[in-house]
């Protein structure tokens, strides 16, 4: 199951401690981690809510341990409080999110409606790395990459899937993770960390530093797949919608990092087509990112949005025939 794969990947990535609060569709990430933790001398805490889980992750990262949480929908909303602290202090927070149909408690299977929340949900500028896996193997591979890049670049990092992928069963190669980036203490020695400042100039300087680091990281981190297919229209999609597009055999630009979005690559690829179709299970949360990235190119844009509904390959073939 996708959720079990995510927990296995966290273990392979060297995670030491998980904080979590049960919520469908990601509860099995927590329960699987707890079984793994018992076998592998790792730690966990079932907290009183997702805010506490997120702040627990922040505290554990400050102590120098790879820590993570997993949540969904309303839990992702509550987690934005600790995330804004993680952004301020550049804490290598890792979150494994199973999107739910929203708003509110909504549904639990298909959705791509937590794109904006996960990437930009704080009172900062949205310097967060967000991966969107399309299949079970990618849940494994991208979760390992998420831990590595979180500790390498020190930005909060997410693997954003949905209930469908979290609950899906199939074969996965739980391979050796290769070289892992080490964690080290952040709050130690004579370090006095601040997230509250006296002067506008102080927080401006912090923003300038973060922006510079983000730009440097973006070019290294952003990731995509381009699959020329049988159509003249280029489909922009991510996650399991992109998996359906792949199965449909259409030309596809699949964003593997939703944020940072691979802007230059997307522009180069899109120039080879006259028309693009943005297909997603939300009213354009991913579409806004794509349209901003492609701004100024002469392209016809078709937007197919179905919040909290899935897409079949046949449907996608029909849309872009």
């Amino acid at each position, binding site marked *: 199951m996708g959720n079990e794969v995510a927990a296995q990947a966290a273990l392979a990535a060297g995670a030491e401690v998980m904080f979590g609060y049960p919520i469908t569709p990601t509860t099995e990430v927590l329960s699987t981690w707890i079984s793994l933790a018992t076998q592998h001398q790792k730690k966990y805490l079932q907290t009183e809510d997702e*805010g*506490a889980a997120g702040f627990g992750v922040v*505290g554990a990262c400050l102590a120098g341990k790879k820590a993570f949480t997993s949540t969904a929908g309303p839990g992702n909303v509550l987690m934005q409080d600790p995330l804004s602290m993680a952004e301020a202090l550049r804490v290598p927070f890792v979150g494994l999110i199973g999107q739910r149909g929203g708003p509110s408690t909504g549904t639990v299977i298909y959705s791509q409606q937590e794109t904006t929340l996960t990437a930009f949900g704080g009172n900062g500028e949205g310097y967060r790395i967000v991966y969107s896996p399309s299949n079970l193997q990618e849940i494994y591979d991208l979760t390992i990459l998420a831990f590595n890049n979180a500790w390498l670049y020190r930005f909060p990092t997410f693997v954003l899937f949905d209930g469908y992928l979290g609950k899906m069963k199939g074969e996965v190669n739980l391979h050796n993770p290769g070289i892992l980036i080490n964690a080290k203490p952040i709050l130690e020695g*004579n*370090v*006095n960390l601040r997230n509250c400042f006296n002067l506008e100039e102080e927080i401006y300087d912090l923003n300038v530093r973060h922006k510079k680091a983000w730009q440097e990281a973006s070019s290294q981190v952003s990731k995509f797949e381009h699959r020329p297919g049988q159509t003249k229209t280029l489909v922009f999609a991510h996650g399991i919608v992109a998996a359906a597009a792949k199965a449909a055999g259409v030309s596809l630009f699949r964003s593997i990092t939703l944020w940072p979005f691979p802007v230059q690559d997307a522009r180069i690829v899109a120039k080879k087509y006259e028309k693009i179709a943005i297909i997603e299970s939300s009213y354009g949360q991913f579409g806004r990112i794509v349209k901003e990235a492609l701004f100024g190119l002469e392209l016809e844009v078709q937007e197919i949005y179905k919040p909290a509904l899935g897409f079949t390959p046949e449907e996608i073939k029909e849309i872009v025939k």
Partner: protein
Amino acid sequence: MVPFPKCYKQSSKPSKFCPGCGYGLMFKMLGQVIDELGIQEKTVLGLDIGCSLLAWDYFDFPTTHTHHGRTTATMVGFKLADPSKVVLALMGDGGGYAIGLQNLLHAAIRNNPLTALVLNNTCYAMTGGQLAPTTLEGEITSTTPKGRDLTITGQPFLGPELIRSVAPLNAYVARGSVSQPAILKKYLRTALEKQINDKVFSLVEILSLCPVNWKTDAKGSFDFNLKMQKIFPCKEL
């Protein structure tokens, strides 16, 4: 004169607290305890958003701001990740008993081995003196302009008493006052020793002074503190 505690960061003095503030009196006792226990090297302090945040560079050991009410949850994570550290979570009465009560309660219920310090100044001091759970009956604040009316806002909140009722028996709970520094120091020391030796939760509420929001002179501040002690009994619970 008793010298400054060795664990103070000299370069950040004089401190950023208002003259006559109780935070500094509490820090002096806390600093002396840390010196005497010889734990400066392994102490880590989390600070809430409230006047406690002004202490971000007060000590010569690692400290971090958190969010309003979220210091306990953050330091629970720190301690779980690095149990070798002596972990302190300092917050105001608003941070501890209003917005962050859920986190404080559950840390106590779980007996998480850290020391929560809740400074009671009967108001939200940092934001200019609003009603807190601990505001006294009849006390004027900017959100209780006619004085706290218990029929509308309920009783002053007894934090240590509540925590005592949910925490395991071996957890340590006490309330002291900056007007009785030697006793307060004893409570702080016991709280840290409990964390270090027994690996249990400890909470010390500190009755403080806030001359700026109380609009009191030196004598008036201590008189107000005495009034607080009648509502909030100082003792080990």
